[in-house]
């Protein structure tokens, strides 16, 4: 496959390369043939800082199945986090997410 399936979103946070952490500007999600993993087509995640040199990158190649599991885990963690935010701070979450502890 030689696809144009690429999603780029802004990112605030940090990523690690070797023993160094660097600030992020973007997360990139793509689907194309793997470049390192001994797999066929993969979901690639790149966490990068576009203002730094190309080596400022944390890259991951996942099978589609592993990516689905990651997405589900992210969804679960984010729902739980939004609940915590609502409980602790009393704001920042949809009313539907605020429930009795």
């Amino acid at each position, binding site marked *: 496959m030689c696809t144009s399936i690429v999603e780029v979103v802004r990112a605030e946070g940090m990523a690690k390369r070797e023993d160094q952490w660097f600030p992020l500007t973007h997360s990139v999600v793509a689907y194309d043939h793997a470049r390192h993993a001994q797999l066929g087509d993969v979901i*690639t995640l790149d966490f990068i800082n576009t203002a730094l040199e190309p080596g400022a990158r944390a890259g991951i190649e996942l099978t589609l199945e592993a990516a689905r599991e990651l997405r589900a885990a992210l969804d679960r963690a984010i729902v739980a986090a939004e609940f915590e935010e609502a409980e602790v701070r009393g704001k920042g979450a949809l009313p539907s997410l605020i429930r009795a502890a």
Partner: protein
Amino acid sequence: MSYYRGMTCENISIKGDRGTSITAYVAKPSGPGPFPGVVLVHHLPGWSEFYIETTRRFAHHGYLAICANLYERTGQGNPDDVAAKVRAEGGISDAQMLGDTEAAVKWMRAQPNHNGKVGIFGSCSGGRHAFIYACQKKDVDACVELWGGRVVMGKEELNEKTPVAPIDMTRGLCCPLLGLFGNDDRAPSPEQVNLHEAELKKHGKPHEFHRYDGAGHGFFYWHRPLYRPEQAMDGWSKVFAFFGRHLAK
């Protein structure tokens, strides 16, 4: 001469698109020549080791060979990281690729032991780029396109960097085209390869397409699970036969 030809390899600087200096890896076979030339257009994974090795492979077979780093403007470092950054930037523009590749062709034609013939070779996005180059410029004598993706593009895929679908450039193709494709590939799919070939026939363009069963995308890539040795070796024999026919003088 011994059975195995020697060669000289080095990085050089060429004036690419808009006069920007970019690096190119060149491999020159030993001996007085004259030698035909091959310009390699690298793939989406960038100016990768596979392409550097392939540049040397052509020199081993008696071709002057050059592969320019089309991603150099994005930065220095591991080609894999550079390619990831290029992907985040939405890729390079077809126009910039044309300017950079033209500089590589000019370098080739300026070599004193060049025989005056230039082939262009690319795989994946490089196959698409090689085809675009052969349609837009008139200074190459043969084109090898390996599984070029996005030759066929929907209107919704066009943008500032890729404003015209390569298939719509077919009328301008200036030289014979060799295309190698895997029937298990989905980009380009066998249906897209058929559309590509139909357009070539419509315009009476000399070409030969070979479609391989049991192979998908990138079946020359010996370091990937995509590698298919039987189909790859047959494909290489077709590449050398094709360039041998069209680049000899």
